[in-house]
């Protein structure tokens, strides 16, 4: 096991390796648990010890994005209570990290005590690829994949928390994989939570454009960092009977794919 740069960065605190608390997006937990399992394998391979609060559920993003702030507040308070004692929180979802990092402090703008607690959590939460590249300084986790891959930028990941290069660096280090950019990789896939259900025509037009761009890239697999988008893209790929694989980056890095 190579020495992680984070240990040089925080020599005292890192005498023992950092303890990572897993925050599992509700979609991953219920629909695509393989993503979390893959993330766990990658983090364990890097020698990190992990814990996972088993009473966690949802960060409140669905309610927040639909305008139900009070219900989102209930979720946020519960999340803060559960994760408050964690050193470092890592999640396989950019949009959930954006919710906790940016929207939690804003949700409690007129409640100083809760706001402070929210800010403390906000400073300790990382999206998976951001944690690997920015915190651990790891870009090569020894993954391999045969064939061409492309990457979809999830909106909240890219514009919410500014993660653009980190996943690309990791993808460029995947042995055997040829990484290509698709056209408009930073365009929304049309998921948007309940938007996909409430405005199916618009959402379908958007995801079909996305799938067309994936096809034109010639990639065998499209990689993303947010399961909401990936379920949307995978659903359209499946409906169109295409053989393109839709993978969360953790699955690619853990070689958890067919």
């Amino acid at each position, binding site marked *: 096991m190579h020495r992680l740069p984070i240990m040089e960065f925080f020599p005292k605190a890192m005498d023992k390796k950092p303890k990572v608390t897993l925050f599992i997006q509700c979609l991953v937990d*219920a*629909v695509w*648990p393989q993503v979390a399992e893959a993330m766990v394998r990658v983090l364990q391979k890097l020698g990190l010890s992990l814990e996972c609060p088993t009473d966690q*559920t949802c960060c409140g993003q*669905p309610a927040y994005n639909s*305008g139900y702030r009070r219900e989102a507040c209930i979720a946020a308070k519960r999340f803060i209570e559960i994760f408050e004692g964690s050193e470092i929180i890592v999640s396989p979802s950019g949009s959930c990290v954006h919710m906790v990092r940016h929207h939690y402090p804003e949700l409690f703008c007129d409640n100083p005590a809760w706001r402070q607690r929210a800010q403390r959590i906000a400073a300790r939460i990382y999206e998976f690829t951001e944690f690997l590249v920015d915190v651990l300084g790891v870009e090569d986790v020894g993954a391999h994949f045969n064939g061409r891959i492309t990457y979809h930028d999830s909106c909240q990941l890219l514009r919410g928390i500014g993660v653009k290069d980190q996943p690309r660096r990791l993808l460029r280090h995947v042995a055997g994989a040829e990484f290509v950019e698709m056209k408009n990789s930073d365009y929304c896939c049309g*998921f948007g939570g309940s938007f996909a259900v409430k*405005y199916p025509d618009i959402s379908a037009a958007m995801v079909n454009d996305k799938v067309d761009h994936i096809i034109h890239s010639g990639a065998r697999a499209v990689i993303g960092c947010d399961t909401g988008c990936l379920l*949307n893209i995978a659903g359209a790929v499946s*409906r169109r009977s295409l053989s393109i694989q839709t993978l969360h980056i953790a699955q690619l890095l853990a070689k958890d794919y067919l």
Partner: protein
Amino acid sequence: MPDISPETYVKVAKKGIANPVLQKALAGLQDRFGRGTAEAYRRLPEGPELRFKAHDIREKAIAHLDALLEILAAKIRANGGVVYFAQTAKEAVNYCITVARQNNVHRVVKGKSMVTEEIGLNPALQAAGIEPVETDLGEYIIQLAGEKPSHIIAPAVHKNRHDIADLFVKKTGIRRTTDPSELTQAARKALREKFLSADMGTSGVNIACAETGHITTVSNEGNIRMATTLPRIHIAFMGMERIVARLDEYEILLRLLCRGAAAQTMATYVSYISGPRRPGESDGPDEFHLVILDNGRSRILADPQFKEILYCIRCAACLNVCPVYGKIGGHAYGFAYSGPVGAVVTPLLTGINRAKDLCLGETLCGACMDACPVAIDLPRLLLALREKLAYGDENWQVKPASRMEGLAYKAWSYLIGHRYIYERFLKMAGVGQKLFPRSGTMIRRLPPPLAGWTQSRNFQPLAKETFIEGWRNKKAISNTP
């Protein structure tokens, strides 16, 4: 009064998606301007960060709006201009008609202006027996076709040259050609006659500056300069928010406006107007009127949550990157303003309940905020509108959009508060999902309220066991590396 129909968002969006001409045009527009604008911001000597400075400038201007407008009005009056503060669309339109009648005006040449769309100036002039002529090429096409603009600065983006050729043959009697420069020449010839015979010209206002007491119009065709200098009378219409305090601030906004609107360093024609022609000058109108329009803006100004939308300078940069606008086009928004800015402004000006689909029909992807030359947080504004729709709001006379949904989120907030019950619920859903038809492992059809998902996508079914269950049972994963 103008036609306002935000209620038909879903229906018109669907039509737009099915229209191949529109789809091609919108993709081309976004490829060209969306990417171009981002590049133009990067090439700014100050870098894209200048947008945040512009945001501060606009914030300050809106905070001192009353004082700035008084200063502007006093300077314009001192220069011999007339300033009229219109509370409503009707007042603005009536003022224009009164001035026109007093001066025996029969024909009005118009520079492109979304505010005149907002107040419905053209139909009102026509009803008063006065002929309005749009002189921006795109607007001219739209007027000939009897349609509405579908983009703030490219109003005829939904028409290709074949549509325009057919239209010109039918309406102007020219020989059919699909050559863009020949079509432009035909329009130019027709418009020259209108310019020379018009008694009044109207324009919008891109930005006004209080310090110097001038308004600015920006165009690439030169038509606004002709419309504002050739006729005897010029009336400029300005949304009351379109002002900055000082010339150095104005200069920053002008540079950002040109980049946001058309990825240009500077527009081809920029006019500074502070009054009518002075004695001894050879060009310019005898009379200059500035109509400063409220029409619901004071109400927005009074709401700290929403006043940020008044920072907007209507450049359309957000339309050029919005993935939703890029599929549905501008007509779906049902009002003068389309795209992300329309989705925020239209509900606030015309009623949040009736424009609820504008508030809810976006993905909050945030591309608009990055493209905005004054860095308006449009996703935050959409969320604030959604909050009004979720709970209702007395100040804005909003009723909750869906009691059912409100109850569903209440139930959801209980469920996610209790992991044990939450898991039992997922287990039940896991059993229930076996009833739905599949293709392979994927679910092909879901019942309402989830039917929208499977209209054109398959659905990944719930896993047999959640990750957390697996973790708890220590079956799948060991906690020790």
